[in-house]
């Protein structure tokens, strides 16, 4: 089971934040097929948000084929986003940590590391498209 949180200052609609958190959890393997999502009642009691917001997020997840509602019981995960790639996460994370340590030794601060990563990520994606 996962626990939702809301960032009130992000400007992102609350139902989109819930969807994003489910997708993120699926990608990281925190949620797997068959897992139950928190009930609407639990989510609203925790976050003090409108029940319709949660219902809307869950409907959208159903539409994306990632979840299904079982009437009277709750909403369950039916899809996956990590696929076979999950096994590769461990080694990749180790490589990334090594790279981060190297960047720090070279004198980069957090902001520079983030900027360098995003910049490289974007230019690499653009090259892939081209």
């Amino acid at each position: 089971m996962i626990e939702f949180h809301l960032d009130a200052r992000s400007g992102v609609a609350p139902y989109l934040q819930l969807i994003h958190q489910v997708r993120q959890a699926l990608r990281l393997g925190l949620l797997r097929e068959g897992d139950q999502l928190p009930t609407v009642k639990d989510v609203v009691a925790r976050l003090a948000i409108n029940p319709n917001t949660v219902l809307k997020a869950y409907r959208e997840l159903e539409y994306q084929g990632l979840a299904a509602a079982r009437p009277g019981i709750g909403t369950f995960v039916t899809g996956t986003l990590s696929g076979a790639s999950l096994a590769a996460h461990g080694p990749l994370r180790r490589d990334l940590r090594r790279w981060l340590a190297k960047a720090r030794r070279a004198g980069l601060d957090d902001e520079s590391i983030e900027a360098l990563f995003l910049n490289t990520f974007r230019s690499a994606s653009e090259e892939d498209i081209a």
Partner: protein
Amino acid sequence: MTAVLEARELGKRYRRLWALADCTLSIPAGHVVGLVGPNGAGKTTLLSLAVGLLAPTAGTIEVLGGRPPASPAQLARVGFLAQDAPVYAGLPVADHLRLGAHLNPGWDAELARSRIERLDLDPGQKAGKLSGGQRAQLALTLAVAKRPELLILDEPVASLDPLARREFLQDLMEAVAEQGLSVVLSSHLVADLERVCDYLIVLVGSRVRAAGPVEELLATHHLLSGPRRDPDTLPAGQEVISASHTDRQTTLLVRTSDPVLDPAWTVSEVGLEDLVLAYMSQATRRGRRNHHLEVQK
């Protein structure tokens, strides 16, 4: 979907002052409705008319299909929590529940008992000795345990500290999820309501300035910024809610159901709080004379 509250040209006058004027509204069932507006805008008057504590001077109001207070049966379907969550200071918590059971035909004793237990309220404690947050929770328990279809709350969180405020709203939303009731709650702070409401009514200067589903309001209001320009030159479908100018730049908040196509504008989305504040300042501006803008070349 049926309307839980329907008002037609509703008005209430105290001597020579109209506390509410020309109010036409139709609130569909199944929403948590936020009634926002500055102090003295007429929020309490509208809610008091809805529960039958006041009679209209003009127009009509129907709540759950009847004119309040139509009958004891109609009143039993409406829960009301007045401002500052009134309780009987000299009566213990348990006696409040006993009172609720005697006065309400649909009283859910089990719900009331389990709520009091979960809130950790001592049944023997006199209500006057409770904290502000506990008092509000006790009043909410009474209102929810009568199992209403519509729950009306007047400034329920205004006097609570941030933690009690959050706990109160959590509890309220849980009741909405469990019982599927419709809620109308008022506040002079939109930030209190932003998370919980999916329908908003903006009441300023005794008049309804905007009303509708929150998503629809957000989708039809845009913030435009661009080179300085007279708002009167905008296309017919764009209603200016607020305008501000520097010597070079104009910033407008407009309401329109059509997309804004003029490439001179940078269009951005508006948050709920900015939207409400724009309507509030619009009303203030209207009170002043000479608000026309001179455009300099």
